[in-house]
């Protein structure tokens, strides 16, 4: 890069950083929306404020965000990447044994984090990330746990998070507004949404690690 560009980039970056720092120094003291959240916690169906914000008060954001992750998966598959290359050697002993030990633990931990999200930091994204981690480990030892699953079922599982979330959101309009959970059902609905989302998030992240789209090759080469 020519020196002039570097100089201009440095000046710009310092200016931007300086402006942000200047703004941070001038931030007013404020509790923000904390009190508004606390006031409505008992109607939210969960006892952890961040989960309440994510899955209830601002659940619409989370719905779109789960859609963004699904979009990333669809987009990556649309690029038609080649499958990750197989290494010429067999994965080493340490890796194999570690995977054998870790994957079940990760799956159990994912379930635990999903359940925990109602009253402590946790929830669908954290649990999904752990599941994806298990998927990545399995990919490293070239094991494909869902290798025999038909691609249609895989797409359905990947889409399950958005589908369940959207279905609950629209069904709530029967008696109220979009995503307006009846307070006595709120906790259960949130758990249902988070469970579906966990599976989808784990699947999406794991497949994004691999990059290629799962296909079955039939006689005529037609993909389902």
């Amino acid at each position, binding site marked *: 890069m020519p020196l002039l560009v570097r100089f201009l980039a440095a000046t710009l970056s310092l200016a931007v950083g300086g*402006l*942000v720092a*200047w*703004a941070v120094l*001038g*931030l*007013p003291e*404020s*509790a*923000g*929306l904390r009190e*508004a*959240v606390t006031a*409505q916690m008992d109607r939210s169906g969960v006892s952890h404020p961040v989960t309440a914000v994510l899955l*209830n*008060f*601002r*659940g*619409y*954001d989370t719905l*779109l*965000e789960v*859609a*963004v992750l*699904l*979009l*990333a998966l*669809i*987009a990556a*598959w*649309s*690029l*038609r990447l080649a499958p990750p290359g197989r290494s010429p050697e067999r994965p080493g002993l340490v890796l194999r044994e570690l995977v054998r030990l870790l994957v079940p633990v990760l799956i159990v931990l994912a379930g635990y984090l999903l359940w925990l999200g109602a009253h402590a930091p946790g929830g669908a994204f954290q649990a999904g990330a752990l599941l994806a981690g298990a998927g990545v480990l399995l990919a490293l030892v070239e094991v494909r746990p869902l290798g025999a699953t038909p691609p*249609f079922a895989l*797409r*359905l599982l990947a*889409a399950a998070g*958005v*589908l369940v979330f*959207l279905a609950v*959101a*629209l069904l709530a*309009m029967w008696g*109220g*507004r*979009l*995503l*307006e*959970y009846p307070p006595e059902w709120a906790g259960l609905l949130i758990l249902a949404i988070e469970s579906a989302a966990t599976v989808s998030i784990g699947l999406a992240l794991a497949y994004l690690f691999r990059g290629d789209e799962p296909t079955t090759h039939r006689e005529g*080469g037609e*993909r*389902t």
Partner: protein
Amino acid sequence: MIGLADLALLPWVVALPLGGAVLSFVLRTRAPFVGLVTALATAAAGLLLAAQVLAAGVQRHLVGGWGAPLGIDLQADGLSALMVAMTAVVGLGVSVYGSAYFAGGNEDTAHQRAYFWPLWLLLWTALNALFVTADAFNAYVTLELLGLSAVALVALAATPAALTGAMRYLLVGLLGSLLYLLGVGLLYGAAATLDLQQLAQAPLSGRVAAVALAAITAGLVLKTALFPFHFWLPPAHASAPAPVSAVLSALVVKASFYLLLRFWFFVAPELASAVLTTGLGLLGAAAVLWGGLRALTAERLKLVVAYSTVAQIGYLFLVFPLGLGQPEGFTAWGGAALLVLAHATAKAAMFLSAGVILKAAAHDGVSGIDGTAQALPVTIFAFALAGVSLIGLPPTGGFAAKWLLLNSALASGQWWWALVLIAGSLLAAAYTFRVLAHAFTRLPGDPPPCVRSRRLEWSALALAATALALGFVATDVLELLRVGAPVQGPVLMERAP
């Protein structure tokens, strides 16, 4: 008996395309059918929403029942309704075109066909969600949904140019979104709310709000491809598949421009200094001239159309000096909104026509379209009609829009912007006629054989006809725009004595 005013349309304009997108992804072989049905439903919902706002005023939907600032609200005033309606019309046209464009037997087109629909419907979801959200952070999520789907659609063409263009577009888009997010965060820091209406009412003065608005503006200007940050647009728009180019130029760039209007006209007009408005106006003027000149000299047909987008976006920024902080700003406001609509329909028609022409042409340079007027009369007519609207000749929508902007410039004493408008029209005429001259060249012998698809040609023509029709319904459009408008004034200003 449920009246129009009682329908909760706002959630449906988002839920319909979202559901359709996911279904078309899961039901891969049925994707075109699911896609078309969803397009029809979504377009209908969008047009109904516009009718509802016209009849019953600003619509608001409290998602989750909580209400701002705790929850997220959806809101449609005149501007939002117009944007949703514009997306409905262009979206329907592009969907019909797309159902025929990706038809074909080989594996590549089958792959494109399967992925076009989920990506396009997710893009439509993002657009509608952006236009009806009343929450600044929710707008960030919709911006990302929009950007990522747009990038993936560009990359669907799979050529080196498309892939590189998509990569550049992605990086620029992400930077823009992050700057926007930074600004929204700082605004929350200053005002303890994310709701646009509450932010508008909060006293926004001091350094935090100023830096916040600066970050938001910088991010959105990047995403709207205002000169000199337009460098990413021509490669991306020119190398994408034709229906994608149409959507990008007609709709996607308008989304970030819409957010700029929201923040400056609704949330923080008091922070707008003359430096800002004049600065944006000057950059817009530069865009008009630079884009027009580059369109005149571009070698590839789609590059001509893409640079035309850069130029037309420049016109839009004239709304800042002409409308913001002006006592009778509605003239400029109306002109800008009409221009957004007119450009959307005309540019979409132009790109769709270009797609048909390029399927028949010898190569994708401008000279490669020699003789195509004989072979594709409907398509060339659509291209010409779209060009007429872009130039701003009566009785098209483009003319109505420019007439309002000219009136605003002359009546408020800022006559120099009028020069920009005129120069831009001359350049548009030049590059449009350049293309048409090549098309009407008579080749010796018979016209080149090409497969003609009625659906492709007529969807392009339908959109061009809409650009023309806009000129006739301009007053109705402006009446819808009045609902919840941030500026007052007559449609046409009296000249200052």
